């Protein structure tokens, strides 16, 4: 009997082993390695010797005093705020429109989803051309409609560069929120709307009292994924402004890359990565707590 039990236990462990191994190799070990390196001063080239390279928490202390890093974090926060509001509100409005039985609904769905499937580099380069101060389409249109006073060098102007990038990020990303929200809307039983209609509810009342409460779990999921995705924005920045002018469009990932590649400060880059991960974890944790509270409310 005991033998049978041992065999069953071993068998269970054996089945779990591949997943544990894969998880350990591809998740736990890299995380451990990044954390270890964040405590070291290392250029990523010399042979790594933990004892020789260990500097304790010096990278983290420096990081806390690094104004450019925290500025980049704030800038990513600004883009995230734009995505959470502008992008998701737009996505919701379009999802609500497509949720109705309208002619050519599928065509709209494809059109709204299209920016998402485009390569970020291509999107960045095309919009860079549109925003171009000399030969850009945006300035050309503005001049043609008599708004020459608004003409500027959009990506080189510190007042407009970050917003321009944020708008493109929202344009590229709203299709994803649209699909998620549309899927959520379609799970709401139609009978609820019919019952509300019979009770004489207006469209706004139906939206406020039926749609919104039932969509809370989808909103939470969309907002968590928007925050995580947007805070890590990178390719658009790299292809449009490369973090410039000055530090005006720097975000955490461009700073990590700058430390790692341009400055060969591998250890510092790892500490930036750990800190960034911790911040994202904290934000997600707050969001989850908030969502639980909202669900209960």
């Amino acid at each position, binding site marked *: 009997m005991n033998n049978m039990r041992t065999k069953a236990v071993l068998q269970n462990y054996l089945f779990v082993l591949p997943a544990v191994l894969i998880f350990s190799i591809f998740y736990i070990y890299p995380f451990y390695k990044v954390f270890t390196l964040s405590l070291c001063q290392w250029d990523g*080239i010399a*042979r790594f010797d933990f004892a020789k390279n260990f500097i304790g928490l010096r990278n983290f202390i420096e990081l806390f005093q690094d104004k450019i890093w925290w500025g980049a974090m704030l800038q990513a926060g600004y883009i995230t705020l734009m995505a959470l509001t502008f992008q998701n509100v737009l996505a919701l409005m379009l999802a609500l429109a497509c949720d109705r039985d309208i002619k050519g609904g599928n065509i709209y769905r494809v059109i709204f989803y299209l920016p998402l499937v485009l390569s970020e580099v291509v999107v960045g380069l095309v919009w860079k051309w549109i925003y171009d101060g000399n030969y850009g389409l945006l300035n050309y249109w503005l001049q043609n409609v008599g708004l020459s006073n608004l003409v500027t060098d959009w990506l080189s*102007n*510190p007042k407009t560069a970050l917003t321009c990038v944020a708008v493109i990020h929202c344009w590229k990303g709203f299709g994803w929120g649209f699909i998620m929200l549309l899927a959520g809307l379609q799970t709401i039983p139609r009978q609820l709307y019919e019952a509300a209609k019979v009770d004489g509810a207006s469209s706004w009342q139906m939206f406020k009292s039926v749609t919104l409460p039932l969509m809370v779990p989808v909103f939470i999921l969309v907002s968590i994924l928007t925050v995580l995705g947007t805070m890590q924005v990178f390719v658009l920045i790299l292809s449009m402004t*490369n973090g*410039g002018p*000055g*530090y005006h469009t720097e975000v955490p990932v461009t700073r990590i890359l700058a430390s790692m590649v341009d400055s*060969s400060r591998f250890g510092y880059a790892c500490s930036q990565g750990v800190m960034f991960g911790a911040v994202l974890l904290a934000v997600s944790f707050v969001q989850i707590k908030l969502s639980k509270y909202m669900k209960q409310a």
Partner: protein
Amino acid sequence: MKGLYKKFCLFFMLSLFTVFLSVFLVSCGPNAQNKKQVKSIKVWHWMSDRENAFLELAKRYEIETGVRVNFELYAPSDAYTQKVRAAAQTNTLPDIFGILGEKRDFASFVKSDYVYDLTEDMDGENGAWKNKLFAKALAVNEFEQANSFGVKPGIYGVPIDVTNIQMLYNKDLLQAVGSDSSNPPKTWKDLIEINRKLKAKGVQGLVSGWGEIWMIDCFASNYAFNIMGKDKVLDTIRGEVSYNDPDWIKVFDLFREMRDEGLLASGIVTMVNKTAEQLFANNRAAFAFNGSWCVNVYKGMNPDLNYGVMLPPQASDRYPMTIWGGAGSSFMVNKQSKNIQEAVKFLKWITETDQQVYLSKETQDLPSNKYSLKDIPMVLSQFASAMDNTTHPNVWGASEFPTVIETFDKGIQSIIIGEKTPEQLAREVQQVKEREMAKKQ
């Protein structure tokens, strides 16, 4: 039925075992290639524009020597840089590879025993190999006595081409504003004067990829050498002269002046060099700040472009104008390789006159072999003639802290967009420098 199933399973297992055993034995046996003992060396590079020329040279080398050279291209350069660093950590570097980065990165590779010391090979036969190559190109790959990196003195790389970065001017646009296109501006004052005429005609002045901050660094250090001389620049790097020095403020002020005079193309602070090249090639700017590689680029973009090369106009007559230049791309031999001698032989061969003439013709780059300058285009020979004026951070023997370089270059962008004054930037750079020096002590 159960017995038949068991027999089938047994048969299946045995067949599977036989197949695996056969595969194992075959893979352990000597293959056709090993029988013939074909030697091969592996080369990693990032130069996508030279891939076809390299493959052709590899073919020729195999015919001549029987040694196969496998060129492996990994682009873009950022990805290549990471690949080489990762390979160094796992001891999987190829026989020949290139190192991208600053001199301190190169030094780190050498100190970690990844790079073979080529000094003996270069000096052999009375320095026959060394003497063929441009000294300035070789200097980039050399570590001198008592260098600040603590590397054993020697030559650790072979330049395969030469480059320098100068200013280019559009002859047609200069003619259109009544300037003598055979006599481009020589002084800063002349440049500002011509720009005023260009501006009046609605022509943009200078384009360059100053979104890639190293190009700003290059332009600024040219003028630093011109205004205060090499010694003072190096003293600043060593921490003996402050960035608050009036000469540095003069350097920063040139950018302020360019901004105020409307000399810089709109959007220059976020412009990548490819865009700058397109603007210049399409006659949309009168001047460009670019490297000798641009000859090939402009040829591809606009074969009819009528342009010339000039040294950046002097802002001061105290010191000569110095430009960045030297080795464009270099190859290093892996010290851990089993084919060191084969790799060295190949590098000797590829830097011989015939191969260099071929490479130069195919890629429109300046050859590293000084006897291969025949039949190069006029513009390229103009670039070549300025090799005596070149310098490079890799030959200075001291290097600035990366954080200082970043603050310096990003700060210049801030001057251009009107956010900072030259004095503010000088103070900021000096603060970062002092912080870094304090950390080092």
